[in-house]
């Protein structure tokens, strides 16, 4: 069974269909890259997969032990966030907020979970540093650690390398690759950076108000070569 399966999903935004008849699936262990032009409906699909908007028709099925609110989401950063006065530890711990259940404060178990993710992302030395003083790459690592607090199985990354310099971009890709291959975290990445993102992808979905392509990376290469030839 797939982690997420979209079955003929149509999502409307302010009365207009943003995407129509979308079907694809995310399997365990996948590194799926979602590409498409601006306005192709990528963001809408992301929001639908997270349950932030409801599809007009079709179904989104979560399986393999994944619940809808256990997706590790890495949103695009807002200006307000960049200068937020909070330590790295506080930000990462906030990823556990949904696990608080009936209690008000983070217990030992959740603190240990946050500490583990901080180690995993190699930001232990920044633990008490202020989020607003970090470089773009360090901020993304912090947010990745937070996302991992919320999930055990699937990361959903929305344009994670936007605004990063080339070196930081490569570094972030290698971090994500490590999470995918060594820690068995499935990855869905929305990206503009075709070349960089494709290097590690196992599957690709091309969105253009619907799905124009969905398949393995090799099929994608053949498909896009055919498109260029045309």
């Amino acid at each position, binding site marked *: 069974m797939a982690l997420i399966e979209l079955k003929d999903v149509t999502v409307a935004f302010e009365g207009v269909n943003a995407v129509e008849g979308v079907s694809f699936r995310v399997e365990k262990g996948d590194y799926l890259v979602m590409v498409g032009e601006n306005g192709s409906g990528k963001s809408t699909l992301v929001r639908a997969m997270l349950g932030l908007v409801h599809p007009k028709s079709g179904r989104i099925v979560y399986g393999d032990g994944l619940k809808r609110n256990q997706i590790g*989401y890495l949103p695009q950063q807002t200006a307000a966030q960049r200068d937020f006065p909070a330590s790295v530890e506080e930000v990462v711990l906030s990823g556990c*907020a949904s696990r608080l259940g009936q209690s008000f404060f983070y217990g030992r178990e959740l603190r240990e979970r946050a500490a583990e993710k901080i180690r995993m992302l190699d930001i232990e030395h920044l633990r008490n540093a202020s989020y607003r003083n970090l470089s773009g790459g360090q901020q993304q690592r912090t947010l990745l650690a937070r996302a991992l607090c919320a999930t055990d199985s699937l990361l959903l990354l929305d344009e994670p390398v936007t605004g990063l310099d080339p070196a930081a971009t490569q570094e972030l890709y290698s971090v994500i690759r490590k999470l995918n291959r060594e820690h068995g975290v499935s990855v869905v990445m929305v990206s503009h950076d075709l070349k960089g993102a494709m290097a590690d992808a196992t599957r690709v979905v091309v969105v253009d108000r619907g799905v124009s392509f969905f398949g393995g990376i090799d099929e994608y290469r053949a498909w896009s070569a055919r498109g260029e030839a045309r």
Partner: protein
Amino acid sequence: MAHVLEKLFGSGAPDGGSRAARIALAAIAALAALLVLCNLGALGAAMGELRLYLGYGFIRRALAVGTLVALCAALLGVTLVLKRYSMIGDGLSHVGFGALSVASALGFVTADSLPGFLPEGWRSGIAALCGRIAGNPLPFALAVVIALAFLILRISERSSLRGDAAIALLSTSALAVGVIAASLSSGMNVDVMNYMFGSILALSESDAAVSVALPLAVIALYLLFCNRIFAVTFDEPFARATGTKVGRCNLLISLLTAITIVTGMRLMGTMLISSLIIFPALTAMRLFARFRDVLLCSAIVSVICFVAGILLSCLWAMPAGAAIVMTNLAAFLLFTLIARARG
């Protein structure tokens, strides 16, 4: 100047230094502001006068209630400023003014002044209700401001009207309603002036119990839900996607803000109460970069500035609200200076 400050406070990197030391630094800085201000007057004579003032029940009430409200405002302020909701405090205080004015205007309603087509029993019933509201306007103002707080939240979440524009519309309308109610009933008299700019005499003995209980409840709720409020403030889409009840959290923040404003506005004045929310948070953020430190520092600065403001207002017979805004401004400038000096 920079050199002296560095000597005094150390020149550690923004993240260096122990937390306790930095909190102490904040307290010292605010105290220094107070002392500088007090020194401008004749300190010796002033102390004797202060002892005299503290003998009055109403001053002690104002100090007790005000300190609690200052604490609430400091905590909520951090969240509201970071959520870019600063204007909500301002908007709600205008609504509070409208509600208080309408309440006191209701005191002029008599059974005879109501339209004749209503049955006799209804007329006397309505008149009695109006009299009760005018006699004890706090619950009425609280209900109105809470209702409007929820409305503002809904508007800024759902409507195509932009949030700040919607708040401006609502708050100026409420202000207009208040002014009309006041001028139709008793004119722009001392009562109305007191609503606008606050009065240290505003808290009657009968109000004191409620005015202490409400802020205590606000502080308790805020601290209990602190972790969830942080998650929602830092990143609403993430919190929503991972199953935190974002809607309820925002409702809670609105509710607590409304209560804080209504309890504090008679003391501070509706025109000035929002400064109690915004100033300490901004001041704390000048120097501190951890959320917990910002909360703590904001609370300390807020209380110190409040007490200093009240004392100044006693000594120089200034309106309390205005004096408190000025001490807050002094603390803000001082912190800005220190932040500059430390680079």
